């Protein structure tokens, strides 16, 4: 089940010839045709950290209420790409973005950033509960966005924790510190916190990379439950995870999107040699 183990990396991702070939092959593949309008549409996206270019000419459409995964070796730009959707990269100095990202046809750069982040939520690689109570963590988003009535907040907290499958475990300790929860519970709390503002899109940046298999399974199960109401975009190192949860998968290499297709196609009949090499564990 694990294609990475016991295989020698015969191709390094730094190999320029491989990348050139992968890009040449990738340009021949077709972006899958979606039914209906895309939730997110990315056109000729380039991204720079200072003078270093991190993303090159990315074009793709992310369908609504589906799960889309991005895979690729470390440092390939998939997290940077994910963070363009809620303009989180703007919090870093000396970064620059070119190109266009549309949310429901509307340019995200033209939107007020806090409004955008209400519609596009995010869960991070390392769980980051605030040093506050469980209740205050989940209520944080609604609170800073203007919900003040206690009963409203209580409803939101209960609903969100139920959606994140955490309610039964924490309902008797809502006012205890969130930092007392286990790692897996903390990550589900962060998902509940993100869900509390009812985002249309939820970005997940390697949400399970610090968790054990049981906690990972719980999170994946949770993703299955919320996928009908929310467009999920997940970045993962774990290819089995992409195969399990995603409808569509994109493969990144050195800042370029090599191939993007249905998950089934990517894993069973990839069109580009580099995708196949990565998936079968020949480099990574």
């Amino acid at each position, binding site marked *: 089940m694990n294609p990475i183990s016991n295989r020698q990396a015969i191709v390094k991702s730094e190999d320029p010839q491989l990348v050139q070939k992968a890009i040449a092959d990738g340009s021949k593949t077709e972006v899958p045709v979606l039914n209906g309008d895309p939730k997110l549409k990315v056109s000729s996206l380039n991204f720079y950290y200072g003078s270093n270019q991190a993303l090159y000419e990315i074009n793709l459409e992310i369908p609504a209420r589906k799960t889309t995964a991005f895979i690729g070796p470390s440092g390939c730009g998939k997290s940077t790409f994910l963070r363009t959707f809620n303009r*989180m990269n703007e919090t870093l100095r000396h970064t620059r973005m070119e190109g266009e990202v549309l949310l429901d046809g509307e340019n995200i750069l033209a939107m007020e950033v806090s409004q955008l982040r209400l519609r596009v939520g995010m869960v*991070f690689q390392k769980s*980051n509960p605030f*040093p506050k109570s469980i209740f205050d963590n989940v209520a*944080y988003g609604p609170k800073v966005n203007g919900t003040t009535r206690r009963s409203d907040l209580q409803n939101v907290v209960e609903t969100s924790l139920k959606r994140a499958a955490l309610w039964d475990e924490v309902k008797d300790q809502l006012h205890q*510190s969130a*930092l007392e929860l286990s790692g897996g519970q903390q990550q589900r709390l962060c998902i509940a916190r993100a869900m509390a*503002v009812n985002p249309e899109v939820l970005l997940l940046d390697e949400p399970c990379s610090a968790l054990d298999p049981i906690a990972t399974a719980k999170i994946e199960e949770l993703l299955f439950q919320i996928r009908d109401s929310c467009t999920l975009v997940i970045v993962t190192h774990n290819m089995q995870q992409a195969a399990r949860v995603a409808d569509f998968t994109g493969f990144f290499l050195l800042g370029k999107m090599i191939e993007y297709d249905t998950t089934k196609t990517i894993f069973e009949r990839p069109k580009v040699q580099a995708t196949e090499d990565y998936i079968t564990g020949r480099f990574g």
Partner: protein
Amino acid sequence: MLSATGVCTLLSIVVLFFILGFLLIQGGKFLSWNFFTKLPAPVGETGGGMANAIVGSGKILLLATCIGVPIGFLAGVYLAEYGNAAFSSAIRFVTDLLNGVPSIVMGIFVYTLIVLKTKHFSAFAGGVALGIMMIPIALRSTEEFLRAVPLSLREGAMALGAAKWKSIVTVIIPAAISGIISGMMLNLARVAGETAPLMFTALSNQFWSPGWNQPTASLPLMIYTYAMGPYPDWHRQALAAGFILLAMVFIVNITARFIVASGMSQKSRL
């Protein structure tokens, strides 16, 4: 090497224990209820207390806190959260210089600024002098504890649609508050013992000094005056006052450490 370092370690704590023991034995035995409630006795009489100096120190330190803490805190927030790197390091350098200004120079500065203008010594001038002395450390401790708040918490707040100032007020400052408060308390404990700036500003007083515009007694200055005096009873009073001042500083220090420790144990579970 081991013996050299060990001896020096021992020496450094021996000094503390010597001072502590001396004040406890010599000063503690002269403590009485009168010390806290009575005014200083007239020259020639024994007994009396330092109630006015205790209250005066409290007033001066309160004013110093009201000046030094808000300015240092807000400037620290600016440096940690908003300032660009070059500007912040320039400010940091300047505040380090301010911190290094001898306290007597600070006294003369406030003397020129306030005492000469108002034509009298006052608790107000004393509070301003100590308040200015508190700013650099208030600023640096605020900045350092805010910088220690992990980036992940800032991103978490902003990803929920919180504007930057809101994430600072609702997440970042609360996460750092135990450290900031303890930094402020240590800062207060440090200026509580300052004598030189008060000589030029609050001066002293043998009587009660209501309001903020009169020369005001304070514990450090009383210790200075009484310890230099020619009467054995004054020396005893000075020792008792030294004991009280040291005890106050100790209590503040220990409380600050407790606050930090409780904050740390919360964070270690992150």
